[in-house]
């Protein structure tokens, strides 16, 4: 019973954070900050849901841990790769306070319209 209540709570939390993440994706000003929001869905949203499912459906506990493991590996890598791709293909930053990367020599991309 307690497991159910706690589980449901985590599910609500997970959905909440996912919702916030998606709102972020819609609201935030540039691609880099939207990637932050996207990462939020992956971490907090899914974490919440996974804990919820582990509690509500005890058979899935072990699998949930495994799933978490893979998500920990893949999610930041994907975010990083997208951000790097955006930066290298000159997607503009929304009014930044500071850009340490500007001027650092990086691999240059070939010109293609695809990235626009």
């Amino acid at each position, binding site marked *: 019973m307690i497991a159910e209540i706690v589980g449901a709570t985590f599910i609500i939390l*997970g*959905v909440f954070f996912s919702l916030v993440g998606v709102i972020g*994706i*819609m609201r935030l000003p540039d691609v880099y900050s939207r990637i932050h929001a996207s990462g939020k869905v*992956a971490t907090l949203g899914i974490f919440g849901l996974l804990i919820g499912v582990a509690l509500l459906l005890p058979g899935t506990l072990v699998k949930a841990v495994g*799933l978490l493991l893979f998500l920990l590996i893949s999610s930041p890598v994907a975010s990083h790769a997208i951000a*790097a791709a955006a930066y290298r*293909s000159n997607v503009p930053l929304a009014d930044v306070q500071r850009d340490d990367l500007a001027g650092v020599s990086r691999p240059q991309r070939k010109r293609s319209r695809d990235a626009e």
Partner: protein
Amino acid sequence: MSELVDAIVQIALVIMVGLLLPCAYRVFIGPSAADRLQAIETITTLLIGVIVLLAIIQGSAFVVDVALALAAFSFVATLAIARYLSEGRMF
């Protein structure tokens, strides 16, 4: 499982599926390719959540296996596209 929890999970599922739509919208409007890419990445993540919720609704643990594969491997496509975007060509 109590009715309340059941209802919560159902509603959660509806919300999660509903969240796919704004992400898809982001895929369509961009503006940059990276935007679309991260929106797709979000869709994948949301789908993992959907699967997890479905596992609860259907009461079957094995459905999580699908999520596992999705979590571990869908980012391969993301990496490929990101690499293509950042270098213009792949190899």
